[in-house]
């Protein structure tokens, strides 16, 4: 029983990071209707960029976040026309081809990372990695590592900024219009190609930044992509595909499931529990917990 508050706090702290794993992915799905099978690989590549920048410049990973975001925003922006060409092709089944294409990209990224970065695990040391925050309440101890708290704050900040951009700016209005109705928004003068490129860039950038955060909390290696792809898929299906307001709740739920399995049961069974929940959701309410998915 004395572990319950710790399990809850851990779940919320981890769940926060999961928001940023899935929110860009869900946004990209809403706008482009593409499932990016390379989502975990973008996280992995971002993490390694953070790792090498940190080695080279000795700056704190949290300070490096904007640089990583910019670099990957640019990569995403430049790669998107190719993705767009695949998913809007006339031949074959474009949605299917989009899936296959990103699957291939993911394989390529994983292979390149294994070649370039090797099989070893690394971590990105942050100045706040060593310290934790202790709470004592009625004989129960709670440990909150600073770095995890910073991760949660980062995730909340990203979510807030994204919310502001989507709700208050013209760009956000265009993005929302595009995800509602592609043709009609085109008639209103929205350039679908350009907006999609920006959205893809934002998605790739957020995923890459999250990789750096993951690197400063856990460890990173070239094979980590699949694990995070599965978490992103889980959250997005639970929240309803393309339904952004559901993402934080689904992420916190995943965080709690994971921390409870870690503390009370065997962590080896986490993946099966995650799949069990995913399966049940697909069986009962395929549009997500809120029934609002696309």
């Amino acid at each position, binding site marked *: 029983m004395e572990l319950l508050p710790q399990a809850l706090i851990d779940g919320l702290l981890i769940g926060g990071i999961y928001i940023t794993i899935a929110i860009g992915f869900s946004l990209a799905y809403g706008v482009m209707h593409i*499932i990016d*099978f390379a989502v975990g690989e973008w996280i992995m590549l971002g993490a390694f960029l953070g790792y090498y920048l940190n080695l080279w410049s000795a700056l704190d990973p949290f300070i490096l976040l904007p640089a990583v975001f910019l670099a990957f925003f640019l990569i995403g922006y430049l790669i998107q026309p*190719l993705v767009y*060409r*695949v998913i809007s*092709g006339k*031949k*074959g*089944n474009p*949605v*299917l*081809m989009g*899936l*296959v*294409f990103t*699957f*291939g*990209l*993911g*394989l*390529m*990224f*994983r*292979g*390149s990372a*294994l*070649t370039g970065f090797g099989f070893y695990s690394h971590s990105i040391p942050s100045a706040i990695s060593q310290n934790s925050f202790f709470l004592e309440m009625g004989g129960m101890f709670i440990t909150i590592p600073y770095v995890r708290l910073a991760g949660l704050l980062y995730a909340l900040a990203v979510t807030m900024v994204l919310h502001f951009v989507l709700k208050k700016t013209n760009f956000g209005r265009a993005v929302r219009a595009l995800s509602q109705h592609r043709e009609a928004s085109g008639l209103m003068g929205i350039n679908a190609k350009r907006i999609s490129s920006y959205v893809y860039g934002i998605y790739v950038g957020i995923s890459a930044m999250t990789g750096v955060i993951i690197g400063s909390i856990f460890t990173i290696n070239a094979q980590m992509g*699949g694990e995070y*792809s*599965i978490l992103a*898929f*889980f959250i997005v*299906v639970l929240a309803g*595909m393309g339904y952004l307001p559901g993402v934080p709740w689904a992420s916190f739920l995943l965080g709690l499931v994971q921390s409870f399995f870690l503390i009370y049961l*065997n962590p*080896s*069974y986490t*993946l*099966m529990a*995650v*799949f069990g929940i*995913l*399966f049940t959701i*697909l*069986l009962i309410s*395929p549009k997500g917990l809120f029934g609002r998915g696309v």
Partner: protein
Amino acid sequence: MSRKYLLLILFCGILLAVPSIVRDTFYLRIVTEAFMWIGLAISWDVLAGYTGYLNFGHGIFFGVGAYTTSILMNLCGWSFFMTLPVSALVAAVVAVIAGIPTLRLKGAYFAIATWALARAIQQMVLVASFTGGPDGMRLPPFLHPGFFYYTMLIVVGGVFALNWFLLEKAPFGLKVKAIREDDQSAMSLGLNPTKIKLQAFLLSAVPAGILGAIYAYWITYIDPASVLGDMVTDQAVVMAVFGGLGTLIGPAIGAVIIFLFKTYFWAYLSDYQVLYLIILGGVIAASVVFLPNGLWGTITSYRQSDKALKHEPVSSRSDDKGDPHV
């Protein structure tokens, strides 16, 4: 027509005679494994090419079949041929369980769910005790290359013939294609899309389970990484997409090309094994961009347009690519 059958009989004769021509076990082994990959690629394509549902966990069925046979032979002492129907049955059960909730939905959900299921099952096999966990399982060795060659040939040939009959000759193929093109209109014609998709999924999963069973007995050692890892699915996907989705011969050609390349690559450049992943990814991404119909689809569409220009008036030329190629 009769020339076509003659060629077919000749081809079958050559295939049957291979073990007496190829004396070297090494090469016989390569041919046998090539058959296995043909089987995996065409069985993947049944679902992906004909119904438009991408199964990113095809390795599940292969692995489940391999593990069923190993467990039955090791722990229950069954003979190999008795385990084959059980492996097929277990693969079918897994397919039904995974298919019922997801095949009702759009393809993206199915792709995600099968991908997640593959990892969940791998995890399950790693932690379970009766599967040997990460150490894998050993099977009683049976060193008879010819036996495995013929078993693989019969199974893959049977699967090919069955798919050819069901998808290109029987009404089932038309139903499946109707659902791929537009499941709303197919429904209005009285078809039950979920049921037909589930049947196609079974047609795709069961052969993979049987191939897995044969592989386990042939290689005599299996572990989660070799039979349930991503590599089985990844290669089957690349072979089918590169060869041409929605045809029978395309994935088979893709399988032979990719498999021979892989064998050559691993034999001569074994220091650069991870490069193979990059090449697989590159081949798949490039064939999506440049050869959306795959190698075979591109060849036949050239041939067709050539023929059409020569023999038919342009007005009656149809643009569809749905002509059955065997």
